[in-house]
């Protein structure tokens, strides 16, 4: 430490708000759990809350996810909007799933490309943009 505490304020840039970094380390909100217990969630798995906001939801973060998923939303979008790392969000989603508060809708099986009709619909939709 070069600053002398008696001299008072240390020179240098101050960090405020986001620049100061997270106040709580990311995995604090999961109670230290780092991976979903049972299932994984693809980035484009859709989530829909099966209930309106539950008063006894475990944490504000769980509440935030339930609030967001009153409309169908993809996992990546939920993570981005609650501003938590994907890994953290996946653990929280697992909680909500096991509590029956949320439903998941997975994308089609990964080893198949979409069918001709779907691809034609995508091309048509892109042309119309």
């Amino acid at each position, binding site marked *: 430490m070069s600053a002398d505490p008696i001299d008072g304020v240390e020179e240098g840039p101050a960090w405020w708000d986001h620049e100061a970094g997270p106040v709580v380390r*990311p*995995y604090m909100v999961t109670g230290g759990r780092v991976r979903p217990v049972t299932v994984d969630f*693809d*980035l*484009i*798995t*859709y989530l*829909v*809350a*099966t*209930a*309106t906001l539950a008063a006894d939801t475990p944490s504000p973060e769980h509440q935030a996810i339930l609030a967001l998923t*009153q*409309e*169908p939303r*993809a996992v*990546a*979008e939920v*993570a*981005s*909007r609650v501003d938590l*790392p*994907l*890994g*953290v969000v996946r653990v929280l989603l697992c909680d909500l799933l096991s509590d*029956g508060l949320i*439903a998941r*809708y997975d*994308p*089609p*099986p*990964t080893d198949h*490309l*979409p*069918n*001709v009709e*779907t*691809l*034609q*619909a*995508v*091309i*048509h*939709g*892109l*042309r119309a*943009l």
Partner: protein
Amino acid sequence: MDSVRSDTAPVPQALKILVAGGFGAGKTTLVGAVSEIAPLRTEEVLTTAGVGTDDTTGVATKTTTTVAMDFGRITINPSLVLYLFGTPGQNRFWFLWDELATGALGAVVLADTRRLADSFAAIDYFEQRNTPFVIAVNCFDNDQRYTAEQVREALDVDGHVPVLLTDARDRMSVKNVLITLVEHVLTMVRSSVPA
């Protein structure tokens, strides 16, 4: 509780397209040009044990890295939504690419002619995974020094892989890249249908 949800919109089918390319190639710009929302950012926090350390004290060296992925969304119709994911630029995050590429419709490799070698890794990756891809050469500030054919030769890609010039800032240009990719996928799907 079933009745609670009965009035809500149906859940659409989601598809994803990856946008790969070297650092600074314009991935997020491209996503933003066609996305209906301002590109969102999702992050993954990685904790990795230090590599190459000969630590005998039992105290492992750990580093925490945040890897960001930017993405956008295009609603094709009420039952079909397309997500565009920019892949992390650094090659050392390959395992995140695996997650992204799983189930992807296809990929756009965004190439910068000033640094063509930056796109080699992405091309190799998609070739080996059999993920359909197109190469979009980002022409910065109308700096169109090479033709698509010259770039194809330089990158040594198969003749069936579309190579096209684009401007990642231009909506119509990017739209054309995506249409070319999906048409390429359509061709592959049709040719793989058993006789």
